[in-house]
């Protein structure tokens, strides 16, 4: 498979004030700390983890909404971090994003038609009539009535708004889409509609997805491969089929066992690995392995040495001293 996106040693630190409201003392919040992975063309890669693991920051850095602190992002043999503003502007048409909250990501004062047309406007594509034509076509693609182009976002339900967000992302014929929790704000019965549509669009338009979510069952369903992130690091990478059956990292195991299964007989028999405590602060992460403070099998070596991502065969990577 041809590699479309390559992320190498990506770091993104945010500067935050930890001195309180009246004192200024800056520290760096390590949202993403040395993350590397590849995405093949036409593939769906899932990125999972808890709140604060840096999954959204990875997505936003890839589409250029954040400038990385260090590391490189290579898209189709071009290093995005070294491009000029003008060159980046053109590449960005190929990289699009679907946002999490369909209530906050659409301008309430613009009609749906204008929202979807705006990217084409910015890049002066086609005549006005052609753009209008394209808006109608996009609305049809995402399963909305083309006549609704003159309506405003508040006239639509959450699921329909997410379809509008997807139509906007598709306007420039992108190759790569970062979907940042595209379904977590939607009702259960609507989630399946959107996921099925994303799968159909991928087939039809040959899209590549980076699917960011915290719902492991949904990620397993939609992805070919899964990346598991914890506190700014990737701890495990594997094919989604395999990762449920043979997780190697203790965090992945705990994460999988925490997901409830909609079957009372199975659910009541299951033994849960319940993690103690909360996520440590990314401003001052634990030394060595970042998971060691909550890890059920942590040893003294975990505090001293940081485990590297190692290949356990056929692309199954894991960052743990005791895996395998």
């Amino acid at each position: 498979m041809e590699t479309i996106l390559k992320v190498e040693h990506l770091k993104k630190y945010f500067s935050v004030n930890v001195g309180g409201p009246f004192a200024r003392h800056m520290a760096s919040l390590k949202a993403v700390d040395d993350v590397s992975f590849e995405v093949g063309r036409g593939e769906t890669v899932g990125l999972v983890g808890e709140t604060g693991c840096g999954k959204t920051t990875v997505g936003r850095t890839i589409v250029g909404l954040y400038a990385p602190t260090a590391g490189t992002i290579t898209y189709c043999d071009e290093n995005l971090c070294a491009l000029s503003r003008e060159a980046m502007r053109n590449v960005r048409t190929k990289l699009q994003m679907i946002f999490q909250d369909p209530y906050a990501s659409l301008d309430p004062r613009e009609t749906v038609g204008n929202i979807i047309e705006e990217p084409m406007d910015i890049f002066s594509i086609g005549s006005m009539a052609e753009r209008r034509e394209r808006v109608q076509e996009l609305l049809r693609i995402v399963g909305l009535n083309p006549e609704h182009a003159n309506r405003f976002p508040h006239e639509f339900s959450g699921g329909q708004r997410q379809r509008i967000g997807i139509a906007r992302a598709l306007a420039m014929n992108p190759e790569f889409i970062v979907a940042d929790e595209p379904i977590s704000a939607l009702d259960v019965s609507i989630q399946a509609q959107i996921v099925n549509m994303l799968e159909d669009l991928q087939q039809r338009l040959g899209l590549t997805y980076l699917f960011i979510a915290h719902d492991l069952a949904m990620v397993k369903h939609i992805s070919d491969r899964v990346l598991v992130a914890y506190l700014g690091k990737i701890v495990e990478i594997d094919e989604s089929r395999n990762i449920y059956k043979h997780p190697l990292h203790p965090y992945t195991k705990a994460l999988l066992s925490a997901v409830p299964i909609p079957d009372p007989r199975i659910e009541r028999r299951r033994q849960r690995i319940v993690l103690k405590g909360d996520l440590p602060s990314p401003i001052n992460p634990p030394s060595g392995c970042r998971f060691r403070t909550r890890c059920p099998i942590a040893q003294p070596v975990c505090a001293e040495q940081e485990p590297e991502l190692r290949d356990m065969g056929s692309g199954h990577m894991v960052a743990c001293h005791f895996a395998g």
Partner: protein
Amino acid sequence: MDETNLLMRIDGVTTNFHTYAGIVHAVDDMTITVPKDSVVGIVGESGSGKSVTMMSVMRLIPSPPGRIESGHVWFDGATLNMADYVQQEGPNRGMVDLLSLPPEEMMKVRGRHVSMIFQDPMVSLNPVLTIGLQMTESMVAHGIADNEEAWKRAIEMLALVSIPNPEERMRDYPHQYSGGMRQRVMIAMALSCSPELVIADEPTTSLDVTVQAQILELMKELKTKLKSSVIIISHDLSIVAGMADKVVVMYAGRVLEEADVYDLYEKPGHPYTMGLMKSVPRLDADDRERLVPIEGSPPDLLAPPAGCKFAPRCQYAMEICCKQEPPLITIGDGHRARCFLHHPAAPAVPGFVKVE
């Protein structure tokens, strides 16, 4: 299921919101029974009326615009200690109607006999009061402990929900707690007066999966320890599967199905329940099967459809479904469903167990 040993019976409660746009029929003729020492799960999407039902029970509906139009909430009188209001005869003998209690009597019920765990621990704690003050407030208000004793009990409760260093954390403010810890405080607070019934309104929705697992395990553990009944409201069928004894499925302000948890998952008696189960991917599925979504979206409660509220989205809808609302009929032991497909003249549907 023992239907005679009842703690609470919600009987025909109808709650409407009178807005400028018209009347929103949020909950319509709601009937649910809660047996003693049980966990009842209420499942539904947003706008299905599950929270409004529970707010009606607690009489916390903002009025105006909300109004509880009719119905009763019968609560076991033996525990309430309100001799004047206990029904002396009839089918509800020994029960007290919470909806007809005077406001000052209702205040004695809230927090003491029925308490609530709210959805969002970030907004349901008061940011300018210490955790200790908020924990002791209900115990002191209900007169079950003086300040000093309540403080001690609050520390015990915090230890029970595994907050480290409870003595010191009592003096902290909510912003010094993480989301999971705040939800633990909410649970400790709800249980502090040992109520007979705890209503948990989406207790884990704003939490991460690993924290969700912690909270659910904690609730299960405390349930057996403190012998309270629990009503757990959720939009997630899988959370209810692990906890509830009995499940109620709500849609557009109505009960569509009510059953023992095993019956509901093994032989669902309503197309909506079947649809919900098929539309979520399962972590233990072997292959990538395509999801089967429920097409369309929930109805507008300002102008709900005539007939069955689910008919516009139902793939098995018949002519009668759009004209007449099906009644909630008994299709098995403690199993009720609101669907015409159970009628002898209705066509057979694959995967659907019809009542004999």
